[in-house]
Each structure stands twice: as structure tokens, then as C-alpha cells.
């Protein structure tokens, strides 16, 4: 499912345009599974599943599997519907160079919401 991020993000011309000055590598942790997601000028260039020996990333987003599952429901419940809501509830840990995350917050919110059930590419 996470691999679909590449197809879904890259098919959204508006999202790619808004991310055109963004190139980075970030870590997405879903329970015990890690993913490295590489973005080049707003396009997702690769989605790689861990485990990793020496991963390099600008920032990491870590949450339990069940929290991500609720976030990716088609109609998420209050408190599970937005990355900042997860951070407010202290279930999503954002760490690393968060300037990259915050300077492109709309991009990351909308990209990760692409994995929601029923959201078309």
C-alpha cells in the first residue's frame, strides 16, 4: 500500500507543482516497519521498505500501525483525521530536521492522505 504513494502523488499535477522546490528523503515508520521515501522536485522518486542498516533522512514520522490505519480510513474519526491531530494526541512523533516538514506541511499532509481508502490518484 505505501508503495502506491509514488503513483498517487505523481499523478496529482497540483501537488507536484506545489512541491517543485522540495527534494528530500524522509522516514515513515508504521509500527515496526520503516519506509524511506525520496522526493525529487515534488515527485516521489522511490519508496523503499526497511529494515535499513544506515538510513539517512531529513525527518522521520513515527506512529503505531493502528494509528496510521485509522488515519488512512476513508472517513477518519476526529483526532485521526490530520497529521497535526495525531501530533497533538502525542501518538505521532515527528523528529529530525522539521524545517523541511513544516516548510512543506501542506504537501506532506496531502501526500500522506493520498493513501486514504477510496482516494483516487
Amino acid at each position, binding site marked *: 500500500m505505501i508503495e502506491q504513494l509514488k503513483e498517487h502523488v505523481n499523478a496529482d499535477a497540483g501537488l507536484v507543482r506545489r512541491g517543485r522546490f522540495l527534494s528530500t528523503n524522509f522516514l515513515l515508520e508504521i509500527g515496526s516497519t520503516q519506509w524511506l521515501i525520496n522526493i525529487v522536485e515534488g515527485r516521489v522518486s522511490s519508496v523503499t521498505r526497511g529494515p535499513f542498516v544506515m538510513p539517512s533522512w531529513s525527518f522521520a514520522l513515527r506512529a503505531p500501525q493502528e494509528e496510521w490505519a485509522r488515519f488512512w480510513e476513508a472517513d477518519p474519526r476526529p483526532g485521526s483525521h490530520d497529521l497535526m491531530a495525531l*501530533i497533538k494526541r502525542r501518538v505521532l512523533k515527528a523528529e529530525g530536521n522539521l524545517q523541511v516538514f513544516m*516548510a512543506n*506541511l501542506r504537501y506532506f*499532509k496531502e501526500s500522506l492522505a493520498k493513501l486514504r481508502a477510496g482516494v483516487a490518484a
Partner: protein
Amino acid sequence: MSASFEPIVGRYMNLQLLGRPHRLYVEEAGQGVPLLCLHTAGSDGRQYRALMNHKDITARHRVIAFDMPWHGKSSPPSGWHDEEYQLTSQQYTTMILEVMQALELDKPIVMGCSIGGRIVLHLALEHPERFRAIIGLQAGAHVDPYYDLNFLHRSDVHGGEVCGAIVSGLVGPDAPDKERWETLWHYMQGGPGVFKGDLYFYKLDGDIRGRVAQIDTTRCPLFLLSGEYDYSCTPEETLAVAGSIPGCEVTIMKGLGHFPMSEDPQAFLTHLLPVLEKIGRS
């Protein structure tokens, strides 16, 4: 489509505020009982555009919204370029009372959202005799910071983009796109550091947890309405405030978020109109 004007009239008011000359933008519509509306942190009076265009409200109320200094079309005071803007409880309370006096408002209903919802709790506690009724939207006694506020004002993060993105999830999921993005646009237009300066009141200075239970609703009726999807001021936090104040009436608005009057006016009006009718009967 032929052009048409809305019934809203906007004017600039010059007044002495907090010991300095200020130029404030004030909008109003309707006639009757004054309904003074306070916008959220980092936004402006446009959040009340739908109320000022709604005949059921303007037929019996003079709806007034002013942009706080530094916000919307109000200017920051002269000398702002060398200052850091930080809103305090004392300044906010004084500003509201001085604007009321300047507009010669006699016992208005005051309605505020978010920081406005917090300051009306301060008003309910300290100045209940000045108001006919008090309505707090998304009102809680305190919010713990849940992100580094410095990101709202630093040179390597676009202020408008980050302010809009920070609050985007506070809009309820069923809000019409037009109103959702209008609401976020207001955030994207805020001046550098203004949202952050408002949050100084919201997250630090304006904590009223220790005193909120002293509010006496026999001196002024208090109504709290909060949206279900608000994770900044959660329904639980509003219910906790309401539970500690005898006589306080509370409504949790299903499907709505942190900006009910702006993000989904039609849904909000189904909750607000009964409250205004009740105030009108009393």
C-alpha cells in the same frame, strides 16, 4: 451573473487603544441587539461574513466584527517594525471594552471563537455586567502547545503557507470546499508573526483553568458551542469548562471543526439560531 452588493458596511475607526493611536477596520450589518463578533488567532473579521449576510440574524441583530490591530485591514500601531507582537489577556480585554465604548455598544451579546472563545471566558469572569449574553465558540480554559511555535515565524518557512497548513486539519471534513479554502486563505494572508503572537495568549498567558469555575452565569448567560473535529480545543475541553460552571449551556456540533462560522456557515447556523432565540426571549 449581474453584480450585487452585500449588506455589509466596512469603515475605518481611529481611536486611542492601549495608550497608542490605532486605525481599526470595523464591519457591520443588520439592526437590533448588538452582536459583537471576535475572530480567531491569525485571521480577521471576514470569518463572520455569512452571519452578516443572513437575514434571520441581521433582522434582529446589529452584527459587528472588528479586525484586531495587526490583523486583516487594521493596521499595526506606529513603531510595529521594531516590536515583537504578543497578545496578552489584559490587552485583549481592554481592546474589546474600548472598542465597545467607541462604538457606543450598550450591553451587546459577545461571541468569540478560539482565542475569542477564550477571552469571552475572561469577560464572563471579570465583566459580566457589560454583556447581555456571552457565546464562546471552540472555548477551552487552556491549550498545551503541541508544536514548536517558532515555525510560524522564521525566515526559512513561508509564514502564510505554514499558518494555512497548520490549521487546515482544524476544518471539519464536511465543510464546503469554497468556505474551507476561504477560511484557510485568511490564515495565509496574516502578517509575519501575528498568528504566533496571538497564540502567546492562547497557549501561555490566557490560561484560565484556575478561575473558570468562578464564572457566575446568573450575572450573564454563557453558551459554549464547539465543533467535533477540533483538536486544538477539543469537545472534551469545552465540556470540562461547561461542567465546572453551573448554568452554562453547551453544544457539541457534529461534523464541524475549529472555525464553525466560517468553514460551514449553514451547519453552524442550525446551532447558533436557537441560542440567539433563547437570548432574545430572556
